[in-house]
């Protein structure tokens, strides 16, 4: 077993354990922090895949922004900060069995599916070359339309967020 494999196995284990803790933690704040650990694990996986850019983006967006957003919303919803009831009910084994069956079925289906392998347009150049990605983003022959649409999508997200949040507040002006 090489060093990379060892690091991968440890990271995968930690990520999965943290994900399980996220859904089973009693305090919502703990759940949010376990989620942070799980997302950090995903960032390490990106780094292991030699994709530095996405590793850092994972930390920036998911830990820096989304996790903080989740923690803020935990603070906004005070009533459900702590769950007292048991985390599993009598039928947990049925659910586990179903989940296992679904997982096996998915693996079996996906193993024979071609869509897993990249068929779309790929950015030319070395995978570590962020400049090539940047050039492709604004190249008219590349991804310039998705790039500009992403900006519009962000605008729409902001408009929607401001609308919903301010409506709850009782409306400004």
């Amino acid at each position, binding site marked *: 077993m090489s060093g*990379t494999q060892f*690091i991968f196995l440890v990271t995968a284990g930690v990520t999965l354990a943290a994900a399980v803790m996220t859904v089973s933690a009693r305090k919502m704040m703990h759940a949010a922090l376990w989620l942070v650990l799980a997302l950090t694990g995903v960032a*390490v996986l990106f*780094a*292991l895949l*030699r994709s*530095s*850019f996405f*590793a850092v*983006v994972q930390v*920036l*967006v998911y830990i*820096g*922004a*989304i996790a*903080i*957003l989740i923690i*803020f*919303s935990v*603070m*906004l919803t*005070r009533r459900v*900060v702590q769950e007292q009831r048991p985390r599993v009910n009598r039928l947990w084994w049925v659910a586990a069995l179903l989940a296992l069956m679904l997982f096996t079925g998915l693996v079996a289906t996906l193993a024979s599916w071609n869509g897993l392998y990249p068929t779309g347009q790929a950015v030319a150049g070395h995978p*570590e070359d*962020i*400049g*090539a*990605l*940047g*050039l492709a*983003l*604004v*190249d*008219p022959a590349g991804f*310039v339309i998705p*790039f*500009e649409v*992403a*900006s*519009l999508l*962000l*605008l729409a*997200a*902001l*408009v929607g*967020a*401001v*609308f919903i*949040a*301010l409506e*709850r*507040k009782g409306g*400004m*002006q």
Partner: protein
Amino acid sequence: MLADWLYIGIFLIISLFLPSVALIVAGILGPKKPNPVKNSTYECGVETFGESLTQFKVQYYLYALVFLVFDVEAIFLYPWAVAYQVQTVFYVVEAIIFVLILLFALWYAWRKGALEWV
């Protein structure tokens, strides 16, 4: 490249290890005489009352949302910035349009009062 990240990982371990060791040493050296009054939660001039979690205003959430939008935006721009030297004016203008749409988003949030700390 993997070596770079290995170094970062090792640095992370070291930079958490050094303060932890210092804390453990300080814990061993310091006196340990807890008592209920000393260990009570701090409160201004009275006994502690109520929960520590007070309810927050929606303003925090709004700032976080606006931050999220601009965070994602900047991340789109970083690869573009790396490739800036080899681009023509036309490519730069496309990125500028991207920024201008986001500036419009900022203006909208401003006009709607989402940036006010009230």
